[in-house]
């Protein structure tokens, strides 16, 4: 484990987390008379943040466990500390966040003219919350970032969104929050389980990883966590907020939403829900697998018949995230690697798709597929980029999507063969809905005269897409630098889940009776009592 390092005297992760917020204040400080400057400031901040995050990748040690940890006592009274750290799992997601935020800022240059200062500062504040969510190792800190993230997103959708933006924003907020409040109860519950087992109040995830959770309680705790994360993912049937939010959000909002926010759900499963409550997770595995697979097929089928491009991409997210969940639930190295990689891939490809739709929307102010047609002729470069991104999205070998999807299916095939086979049908269906859409938008003659003179990609738009295209091929052709870095962490995750499942079972067995009395009042199991701290 490499020791925590700091830049400019600030602990590195804290710097990463809070730099965008400071930048947001900077954006707000732009005088009103020159509020168009806000975008430049915001981009500089976001770009700097991305550059700042690069050492995270380069200095990352391919070993298991947390790195670059930071820990400061915070809520000493209740045993919560400001504890940050990254491992392979979060490292990539943080990088994805910084990249997508920078690109989102860039993509909004011409799309957002109204109240730009507020817009960009919210975007940057959102970045803080997202990175915070990924690096927090204390449950309270995690929950704070998790919830705080809703606010800027809510405003981004609600203020700069489409026609039904208000409905969408509120639904997004309420639905996600409704899910996560139950998680808070579960967090508190686990916290007291930890206290009764060890005598120590701690919200620290790493402490909790050593806590045997009674089997009877696990189900409830797991479900509470799982619902919160399943809504965020979103897993079928908790996905209905997503199409609405995606459609109504401004382009950058959709990009962040699809690219990063959804990953919080899958990340949460892998970091919290499954390792903390492994036995319950295993117990409920068939259901989760079923939902993941249903999500894959269902999302694809429903995406197919969408008349609205953004909605189509939104439902495709349901399908893709179903793959991510499937791979994760395989709980083997292949599935987990694929799952993580697919999280990144989905961020790239779906993010890029939303950016592309945004490009179109900016020119035509419609998202209906039927309003397009023959776009290839008008905007050939755009069409090619669209094509490549689409291929990445349908997991064509050679693009990033394939590596992830294949590993997921492989992992799932090893662990849950039937589910994997059904899920593989998604491979066909993803081609179906994407190609139908692509054909109707890109091919054919130009049927709407308004489309005749659409300008092709501009230089700034190229600047947005080139990094994504590079990643599409890099991850597709040479994913080794990524995979190698995350392997130890994922292996650790898998083994942690296994170890903890055993730990919980043996603790229960040794106690000689079920430790399932629900609350901390239960006297600790004898073996854990021995480890009680003074």
């Amino acid at each position: 484990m490499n020791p925590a390092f700091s830049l400019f005297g600030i602990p590195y992760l804290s710097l990463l987390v809070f730099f965008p917020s400071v930048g947001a204040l900077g954006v707000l400080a732009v005088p009103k008379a020159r509020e168009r400057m806000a975008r430049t400031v915001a981009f500089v901040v976001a770009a700097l943040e991305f550059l700042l995050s690069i050492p995270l990748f380069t200095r990352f040690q391919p070993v298991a466990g947390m790195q670059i940890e930071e820990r400061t006592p915070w809520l000493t009274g209740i045993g919560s500390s400001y504890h940050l750290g990254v491992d392979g799992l979060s490292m990539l997601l943080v990088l994805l966040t910084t990249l997508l935020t920078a690109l989102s800022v860039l993509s909004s240059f011409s799309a957002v003219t109204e109240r730009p200062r507020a817009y960009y500062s919210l975007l940057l504040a959102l970045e803080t919350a997202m990175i915070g969510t990924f690096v927090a190792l204390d449950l309270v800190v995690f929950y704070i970032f998790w919830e705080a993230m809703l606010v800027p997103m809510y405003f981004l959708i609600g203020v700069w969104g489409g026609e039904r933006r208000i409905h969408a924003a509120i639904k997004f907020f309420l639905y996600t929050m409704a899910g996560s409040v139950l998680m808070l109860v579960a967090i508190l519950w686990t916290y007291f389980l930890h206290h009764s087992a060890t005598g120590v109040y701690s919200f620290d995830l790493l402490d909790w990883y050593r806590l045997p959770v009674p089997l009877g309680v696990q189900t409830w705790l797991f479900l509470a966590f799982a619902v919160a994360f399943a809504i965020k993912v979103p897993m079928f049937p908790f996905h209905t907020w997503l199409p609405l939010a995606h459609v109504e959000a401004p382009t950058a909002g959709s990009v962040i939403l699809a690219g990063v926010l959804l990953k919080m759900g899958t990340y949460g499963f892998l970091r919290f829900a499954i390792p903390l409550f492994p036995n319950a997770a295993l117990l409920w595995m068939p259901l989760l697998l079923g939902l993941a697979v249903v999500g894959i097929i269902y999302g694809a089928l429903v995406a197919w018949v969408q008349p609205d491009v953004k909605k189509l991409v939104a439902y495709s997210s349901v399908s893709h995230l179903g793959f991510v969940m499937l791979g994760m639930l395989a709980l083997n190295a292949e599935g987990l690697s694929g799952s993580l990689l697919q999280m990144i891939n989905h961020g790239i490809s779906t993010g890029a798709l939303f950016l592309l739709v945004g490009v179109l929307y900016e020119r035509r102010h419609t998202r209906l597929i039927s309003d397009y047609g023959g776009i290839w002729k008008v905007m050939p470069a755009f069409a090619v980029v669209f094509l490549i991104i689409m291929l990445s999205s349908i997991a064509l070998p050679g693009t990033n999507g394939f590596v992830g999807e294949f590993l997921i299916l492989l992992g799932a095939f090893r662990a849950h063969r039937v589910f994997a086979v059904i899920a593989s049908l998604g491979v066909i269906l993803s081609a179906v809905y994407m190609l139908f859409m692509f054909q109707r938008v890109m091919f054919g003659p130009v049927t709407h005269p308004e489309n005749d003179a659409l300008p092709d990609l501009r230089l700034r738009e190229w600047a947005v897409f080139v990094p994504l295209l590079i990643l599409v091929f890099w991850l597709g052709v040479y994913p080794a630098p990524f995979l190698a870095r995350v392997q130890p962490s994922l292996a650790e995750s898998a083994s942690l889940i296994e170890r903890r499942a055993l730990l919980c079972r043996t603790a229960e067995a040794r106690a000689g009776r079920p430790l399932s009395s629900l609350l901390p009042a239960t006297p600790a199991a004898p073996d854990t009592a021995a480890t009680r701290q003074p």
Partner: protein
Amino acid sequence: MRPALPPLQFIMSSTDAMSLLPVWVLTGVALLALTVDLFSRKRGAMWSAWVSLIGLFATGLAIWQVRGLDRTVFAGMVRVDPFSQFFSAVIVGVTIVSVLFSWDYLKRTEILRGEYYALMLFAALGMIFMAQANDLIMVFLGLELMSLALYVLAGFRLGRMESTEAAMKYFLLGAFASGFLLYGIAFLYGATGSTNLERISGYLIESPLAGSPLVLLGIALALVGFAFKIAAVPFHMWTPDAYEGAPTSVTAFMAAGSKAAAFAALVRVSSMVLAHVPITTASVLEVVAILTLVVGNVVAILQSNLKRMLAYSSIAHAGYALVGVIAGGPDGHAAVLFYMATYAAMTLGAFGTLTLLGRGMDERVDVRELGGVGKRHPILAALFTLFMLGLAGIPPTAGFVGKLYLFRAGVETHHVQLVIVALLASVVSVYYYLRPVVVMYMQEPSGSPVEVSRSGAASVALAISASITLVVGVLPGGLADSALRSVLSLLP
């Protein structure tokens, strides 16, 4: 032969006197505020305001002076301990902020009179008495002092029917509830032979008759009185009407101050009385808490008058705080303290914002009229949003941390169902808290746009509330520690 009367003893040492310094100061200030008003017909009222403000700061200093003291004075009537100091500080803070909000609000609504500030200070005094009360008599007297002042304040805007109506409803129901409280105190007195909380608690601990019907009756009726003051369902029904009709600055003061004081008394009583009754009143309180959470939040959804909406929200918040009371113990009570302090800041800020909406006599508190405020008054809108988010319990505001502490205590003491209800209710609350935000930022003004009054004093007050909401949200440690230290003095 006539037996000799016992001699009258001076029962006060200088330390005792010293420990009551804040009360002395505040009383003096209140009287002074009342008096200075008389000297100038024109500017007297503003002199009262200045006197009140400076006096309140002096009171604050006095509280700082007596910090850490823990003693019972006046033959057990008053307990000056960290607990009461905590609440005193909160109440003084609430009053300062309320005075600041009143500063220009009274002018523009043309109800500027010196008695206003005097009454506010008397009400604050009553609240402090409740927090310090170590005897049911003091609880009753403090409560009445506070209530009487508030009845008048609620009806202070004589020119408006709503204000008078609010005052009348508040008064009738308040007096009604006081009747129950008094009757409850009577039973407790009869059952335990004392009105002194320490003696009651001592008796209950020792006596095998702690669960006797008289005690129960007493507790039940006293609870009704407290439940009324904290606006718990179904004793809440005065709240929306009183809050809506009262001058907005008074509403702010009521919502923050009287709730804090009532919780102060409730926590002290519950830790010294309820805790020692062998039967559980928790189930009753739990039902009340659940009702409060549900009704408060659900009905708030339908309100378009912001004052009324916030009134329901204050009902709901009583429900959250009740979770801490029900949980009990140092953790639960500390959570209540913490929550009251943060809730006060947020709700003051929210109502305070409302004092600025509209110009002159024209108050604009309908949520539907807020369209475009976000664009034209970005700072005000941002602050209001902050308060709304805080009340909704969204991190990183103080509201979240407050709820975290409360629910932590709730889960710790096995009240998981209650906590779940509270959390789900908080999800519902998000809807109505976000509604003004939606309108301010996401909708265009319909009809004539809301004009916003300018007020330096109110700006300062908003800044104070906002910074507390945010700073405590990010660094809650200090407040949490002091809350915990404060409740430790409740332990026998």
